């Protein structure tokens, strides 16, 4: 019997995709290594986070562990069961939430959705009804339980999704971006619930690309990039991997590429990472890692901003975060993939 709640050994998943080029031209096949020899062990009762940008391989890892995918190489065990040879046992040991607002029957009520899945988990009717009541209470949906899901807000669907993952009271929970698309209040509620579940002894594997969330929730984090784990440890251990330096975070409008290039060329700048949230107004966040004390660099930075007509809305000097760990280890911005796909 394996002693870890989850254990992976060189877990690998390769997808073959076909590029499409018009109607008659045959596209070329492309191999994408979504998960590349991933190794990690999750102890019972811990919250383990897979942190990485979009397309890093987090969801594929969860799907492999949840038996929705078959690995091309390597092995993994969940609750001591092999994910390929003992897939049924694995499914009985896990509760999974994959998409915060999809995967529900919209023409059924919240309660009917839970009842349906409770039966599929083989909960006898009386036990199911009791469990559904408990869960509706926990996720704060009791008042809306008899409304059709099509009338639910995104936050309510996310809560219902979480309640479904808890139906079978499995020892291991796998939550894929549980707070994605939620308003701050709903996201906080979900985070509180995750902490409560950890308190009840559940093992939680969660994926996120929200740095603060990972830092706040996880006992240990694996930073994943292009299918590979680039670092693994507690949030504090990971942050210690980065040289102690000041980070300037600037929220601004009209951020232009020329400014970023200029900044990268400055001696006092070790790296620049941008996260453009609105491509129309070019508003977003600049994260600038400094080589020297920020007090000396700040006047120069502000002068450059003024010169490039960047409208600064907020500026703060902070210490390294998990985002800086990611940038240092991968030599790329955390949101680069997003910007590139948006640009395409």
């Amino acid at each position, binding site marked *: 019997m394996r002693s870890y709640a989850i254990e992976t050994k060189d877990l690998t998943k390769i997808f073959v995709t076909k590029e499409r080029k018009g109607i008659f031209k045959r596209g070329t096949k492309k191999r994408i290594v979504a998960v590349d020899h991933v190794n990690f062990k999750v102890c019972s009762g811990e919250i383990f986070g897979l942190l990485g940008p979009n397309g890093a391989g987090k969801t*594929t890892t969860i799907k492999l562990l949840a038996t929705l995918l078959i690995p091309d190489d390597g092995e993994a065990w969940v609750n001591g069961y092999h994910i390929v040879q003992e897939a049924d046992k694995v499914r009985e040991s896990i509760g*999974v939430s*994959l998409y915060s607002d*999809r995967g529900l029957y919209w023409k059924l009520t919240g309660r009917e959705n839970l009842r349906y899945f409770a039966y*599929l*988990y083989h909960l006898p009717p009386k036990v199911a009804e009791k469990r559904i009541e408990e869960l509706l209470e926990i996720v704060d949906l009791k008042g809306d339980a008899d409304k059709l899901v099509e009338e639910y807000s995104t936050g309510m669907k996310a809560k219902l999704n979480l309640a479904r993952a808890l139906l079978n009271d499995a020892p291991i929970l796998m939550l894929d971006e549980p707070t994605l698309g939620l308003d701050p209040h709903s996201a906080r509620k979900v985070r509180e619930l995750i902490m409560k579940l950890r308190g009840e002894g559940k093992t939680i594997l969660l994926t996120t690309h929200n740095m603060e969330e990972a830092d706040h929730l996880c006992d240990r984090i694996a930073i994943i990039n292009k299918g590979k784990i680039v670092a693994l440890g507690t949030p504090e251990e990971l942050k210690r991997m980065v040289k102690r330096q000041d980070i300037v975070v600037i929220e601004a409008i009209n951020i232009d590429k020329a400014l970023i290039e200029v900044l990268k060329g400055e001696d006092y700048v070790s790296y620049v990472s941008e996260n453009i949230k609105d491509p129309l107004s070019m508003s977003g966040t600049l994260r600038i890692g400094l080589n020297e004390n920020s007090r000396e660099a700040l006047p120069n930075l502000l002068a450059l901003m003024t010169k490039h007509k960047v409208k600064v809305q907020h500026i703060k000097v902070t210490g390294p975060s998990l985002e800086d760990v990611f940038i240092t280890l991968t030599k790329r911005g955390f949101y680069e993939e997003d910007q590139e796909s948006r640009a395409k």
Partner: protein
Amino acid sequence: MRRIKSLVLNNLLVIKAVFMREILYWVRYPLWFLTLISFPYLISGLFYSIGYALSGENAIKYFNQRAGTPNVFLYQLIGSAIFMISILIIEDVGQSIRAEQFRGTLEYNYLTAANKIVLWGSVVIPHGLISLTTLAGSIIPMLFMEIKPVDPLDLVLGVLVLFIGLMPLFGIGFVVAALTMRFKEPWAVTNIIKAFISAFSGFNYPITILPLWLQYVSNALPTTVVTDIIREALLFNKRLYTMSYQIELLALMGLVYFAVAITVYKRWEEEARRRGELSKY
């Protein structure tokens, strides 16, 4: 013994879950009732009219010579009703899986501890039951008007024959389901299967009018055997127990079709998991 009991109870829970879900969905989208009630009459009327257009006044005379009965409309009605149920069963599992893919619920169903054959196959029960009830409601008035009273034993046997006859179709349905899971395009295959079955099962004309080699093909179809048995009983008042050979043949077909289908389904389900097709739509 306890294990078997728990296995049965667990699968019954799965069947109940799917049954309740489907009934709720159907009640919340109610207009399909109209289709089921009217279709056997519309199809029968269509063929009746085509026959009349081709042969005019002599149509019924010719039909009687070839089919052995002048009761064209009832002949068509029985065939059309069996055709509708057959198509429903062939398409149902595949269509249901496709709907789950679109809704994003397929993976969540898949993640549960439920036996997947029972889970996907269960949709046929509520759909079949509702269709049968509606169809019975739609053709019973016609049966009362046109046929002699049926022995209750034969009625029970008739339902049993229909059930046995549906098993091989259920098998074909699982092959379609496997296709859906792997290729996402069940329509092309189901349409070919539907066209093939409707042309060669003798739903609307006796298969004896086909060339001999096609009659052999036709006889290998479970739908031909079911239609034949039910028509013999309802139209020609033949006692069902006298057709035990055909019923045994039907049961054997059911086993073979079903075994092949489950093997194909399992193979393609694994392939879908390997290629990451479960989440695609």
